[in-house]
């Protein structure tokens, strides 16, 4: 123990609540903008996602109104293009992903036994990026400049030649802005799940929802970077004429499709898996028995995660890919049905072997089974190349994707809404509207989309704004539209139902379903700190006596049963065993995330409106603000183990090697490396596949290759800095050396960049230009990180024990140095015209 002031045990549960509430609460009024608490931000994410769902639904109604009758003049083709593009974009990027992120942000700490997520300010930053990025899209739509090239933005239609306005830029920049929130959420969900569970919660005691979210977040780390890279490359083509996708200058439109679907297909499972996690949580409650096949489900979701990255080409079966490649992707597409089926049988088995009780959430679960299994079966049909070739780009595909996404996401989310609404509100539902709402939704949905299978099989193509009346599609389309409006009435009733519960619902018991998971072991609605005392688990976390644990918390049994130094404290644990190994101090309310998101928004708006002088200023502002973020972090002295209650003492997070900051950096580097691998894939793909590839190509100047040496020197210096610090010596010299060598590396790479002759003339040169930009950027960041660590060391925030800053520098400089080597290999290959 150290001389840290001993915590003052609160004398009563009420006193403890007051003390903790004072520390963790979000201020009222304008102070709400400074919120970083996961309860507040999770709900904001979900409410905003529901707002976007309403917007997307309204667009769907316009689509169905237009298609209800043949030769309709309701909206013209140009507006129709904007509407169907925005419908898909809003539902996928602004509703589905943020909705499950919001649920996870709100629910995961509670299910895991933590007081908040690992990086509350990043949660807030992600939320603001989501709000501002989504707003760009919606404002553009209202102004008549919405994206209009389909939600997957295929080139060359979305290239500058065929979409010359800013419509496509709105999509590329708005979505990339929004995706910041997805990446930040993925990182902090992974870190929270691995490091911030309740003591005693080993990995195999984790609630199954935790496993689902761990796998989903891992998929997001790998799945989103190809889309982000594709968007950057396409925006570079549109803004600066770098011809990555232009076949007349060595580019290839199919590269966009590969990058998009490398994201786009895993995305389906990224959306489905959290919903499946919800089902695996709710079904045991209503079956009144633990989930069958816990470990089988873990294996199944791991299998799904990997397989889902091996089937993206089934969206491209008709583009002219050799039969053997088609066969690989076809087999993988069919195979992914098996791990899906494992889960479905586990759920059915749980219900069959339990004592099921039926309530509103169960209605939607039954709806899920019916709708999703149909969608899965048509998915297997579409996995078969001959059938896919026939049904491609018809309404059959529209029907399939809606059965999968509405069945696999919307129905489980409605079940989740009814299941957890008492947790959000602390009130019981009135249910007077719930049952009719369900029937309107399920009947309306099937009327709308089942008939689309038929119109699709009759040859009706997607994305057409009108059709003639003599092809037999008339009555099917009319009924589809009728069903669509019926479904909308159902969703409206659900909305009214929610409002009714908030307004008229009676105060209810804290665990209305007799659930056996941790989120019900707290008052509802939950206090901002979740758990007054952090429990110690001795059993699997989805088979607990939540009521008894709630009583224990009231009686002060558990860890951190005190308020200490006005700090937001929670516990970190060993990743595998769940043994507590650190106290994590979380940052309190601040406006910094808002300011940083505004600066980020200025960067994106500068690009969108081609006011390019703003972008470097905004980028500098973002960097400066992130530096300010670090100011309150850390300590100027070593504290050693401090009391956490229950007779235990552990060090502060900054004093352990295995801390959340380092985990976050590893995850961020995984995102970065995936983006880079996608870029390298792009270069290789163009060299092998693109038409119009020149040979011989302009040669390469080797002077900038000096960066290879200086980069390695910087990495070596960073290692020496860490080693010196570990030996009790001052790391300043080596940190400054790392910064200087990184600056030299960046300069060498910038010279290389300037030496690329006319990058707009050919994709080969554009790719070289981009490789130099990537490597120079990383050398620049390495320099900034080394300088920042030197500044922190100078300020006394670094010691032999408190060495996180140095470890961050070491990891990044290693990456920046190593990243140059494959870049130079590709540069060499490109300079030789290809790989022949």
């Amino acid at each position, binding site marked *: 123990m150290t001389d840290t002031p001993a915590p003052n045990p609160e004398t009563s549960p009420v006193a403890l609540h007051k003390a903790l509430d004072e520390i963790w609460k979000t201020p009222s009024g304008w102070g709400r903008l400074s919120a970083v608490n996961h309860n507040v931000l999770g709900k904001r994410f979900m409410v905003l996602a529901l707002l976007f769902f309403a917007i997307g639904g309204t667009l769907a109604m316009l689509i169905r109104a237009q298609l209800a009758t043949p030769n309709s003049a309701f909206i013209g083709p140009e507006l129709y293009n904007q509407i169907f593009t925005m419908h898909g974009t809003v539902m996928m990027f602004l509703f589905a992903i943020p909705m499950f992120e919001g649920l996870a942000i709100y629910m995961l700490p509670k299910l895991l036994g933590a007081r908040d997520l690992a990086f509350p300010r990043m949660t807030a930053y992600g939320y603001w990026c989501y709000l501002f990025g989504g707003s760009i899209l919606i404002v553009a739509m209202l102004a008549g400049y919405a994206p209009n090239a389909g939600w997957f933005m295929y080139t060359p239609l979305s290239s500058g030649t065929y979409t010359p306005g800013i419509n496509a830029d709105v999509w590329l920049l708005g979505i990339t802005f929004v995706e910041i929130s997805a990446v930040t959420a993925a990182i902090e969900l992974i870190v929270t799940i691995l490091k911030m569970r309740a003591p005693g919660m080993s*990995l*195999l005691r984790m609630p199954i929802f935790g496993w689902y979210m761990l796998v989903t977040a891992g998929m997001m780390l790998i799945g989103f970077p190809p889309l982000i890279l594709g968007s950057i490359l396409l925006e570079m083509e549109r803004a600066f004429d770098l011809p990555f996708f232009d076949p007349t200058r060595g580019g290839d439109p199919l590269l966009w499709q590969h990058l998009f679907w490398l994201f786009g297909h895993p995305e389906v499972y990224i959306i489905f898996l959290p919903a499946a996690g919800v089902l695996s949580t709710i079904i045991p409650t209503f079956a009144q028995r633990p989930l069958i096949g816990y*470990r*089988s489900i*873990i*294996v199944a979701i*791991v*299998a799904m*995660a*990997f*397989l889902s*990255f*091996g089937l993206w080409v089934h969206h491209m079966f008709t583009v002219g890919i*050799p*039969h*053997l*490649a088609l*066969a*690989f992707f076809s*087999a*993988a597409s069919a*195979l992914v049905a*098996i*791990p899906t089926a494992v889960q479905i049988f586990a759920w059915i088995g749980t219900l069959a072997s339990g004592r099921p009780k039926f309530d509103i959430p169960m209605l939607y679960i039954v709806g899920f089974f019916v709708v999703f299994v149909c969608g899965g079966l048509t998915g297997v049909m579409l996995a078969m190349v001959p059938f896919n070739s026939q049904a491609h780009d018809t309404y059959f595909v529209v029907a399939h994707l809606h059965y999968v996404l509405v069945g696999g996401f919307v129905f489980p989310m409605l079940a989740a809404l009814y299941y957890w609404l008492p947790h959000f509100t602390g009130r019981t539902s009135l249910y007077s509207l719930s049952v009719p709402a369900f029937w309107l939704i399920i009947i309306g949905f099937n009327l709308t989309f089942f008939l689309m299978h038929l119109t699709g099989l009759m040859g009706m193509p997607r994305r057409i704004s009108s059709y003639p009346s003599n092809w037999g599609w008339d009555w099917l389309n009319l009924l589809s539209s009728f069903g669509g409006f019926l479904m909308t009435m159902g969703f409206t009733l659900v909305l009214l139902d929610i409002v009714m519960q908030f307004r008229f619902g009676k105060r209810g018991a804290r665990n209305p379903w007799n659930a056996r998971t941790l989120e019900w072991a707290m008052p509802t609605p939950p206090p901002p700190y979740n758990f007054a005392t952090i429990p110690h688990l001795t059993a699997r976390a989805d088979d607990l006596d939540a009521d008894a644990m709630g009583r224990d918390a009231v009686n002060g049994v558990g860890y951190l049963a005190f308020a200490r130094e006005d700090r937001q404290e929670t516990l970190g644990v060993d*990743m*595998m065993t769940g043994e507590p190994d650190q106290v994590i101090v979380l940052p309190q309310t601040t406006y910094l995330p808002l300011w940083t998101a505004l600066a980020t928004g200025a960067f994106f708006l500068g690009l969108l409106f081609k006011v390019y002088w703003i972008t470097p200023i905004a980028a500098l502002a973002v960097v400066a603000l992130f530096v300010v973020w670090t100011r309150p972090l850390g300590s100027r002295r070593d504290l050693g183990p401090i009391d956490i209650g229950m007779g235990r003492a552990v060090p502060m997070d900054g004093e352990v090697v295995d801390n959340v900051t380092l985990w976050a950096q590893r995850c961020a580097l995984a995102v970065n490396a995936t983006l880079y691998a996608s870029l390298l894939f792009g270069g290789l793909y163009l060299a*092998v*596949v693109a038409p119009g590839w020149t040979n011989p190509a302009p040669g390469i100047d080797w002077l900038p290759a000096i960066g290879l040496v200086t980069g390695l020197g910087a990495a070596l210096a960073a290692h020496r800095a860490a080693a010196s610090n570990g030996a009790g010596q001052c790391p300043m010299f080596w940190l400054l050396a790392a910064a200087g060598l990184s600056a030299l590396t960046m300069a060498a790479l910038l010279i290389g960049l300037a030496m690329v002759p006319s990058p707009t003339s050919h994709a080969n040169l554009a790719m070289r230009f981009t490789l130099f930009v990537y490597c120079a950027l990383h050398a620049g960041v390495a320099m900034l990180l080394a300088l920042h660590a030197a500044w922190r060391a100078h300020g006394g925030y670094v010691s032999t024990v408190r060495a996180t800053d140095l470890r961050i520098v070491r990891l990044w400089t290693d990456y920046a140095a190593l990243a140059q080597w494959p870049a130079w290999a590709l540069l060499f290959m490109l300079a030789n015209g290809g*790989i*022949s």
Partner: protein
Amino acid sequence: MSASWGSLLIGFVIWSVAFVAIYGLQALGCYWSWDPALHRLVLVGAWLAFTAALGLVLLMQIRQTNRTALQQAGIWATLGSLGATIVVFAPALFVSACV
């Protein structure tokens, strides 16, 4: 710690490497205009090599004593990845590679 994670993930990591390698070999063989018989031989050889590697990993996992629960789950994951490798790349035996 890493052994348990590795056990759970190694099978499908190998499957992913196999996917990239075999898909890449298919594309490069066509680009370099390999003789079709040689091309097929390379593809089938790669398929068999990865299948054998996975079989070996599975055998090692099964023979391991004092397995943790996560390592036990890892056996099933590797078994799944072995099945996926056999099924997904089996078309290398008979489907035309470059048409």
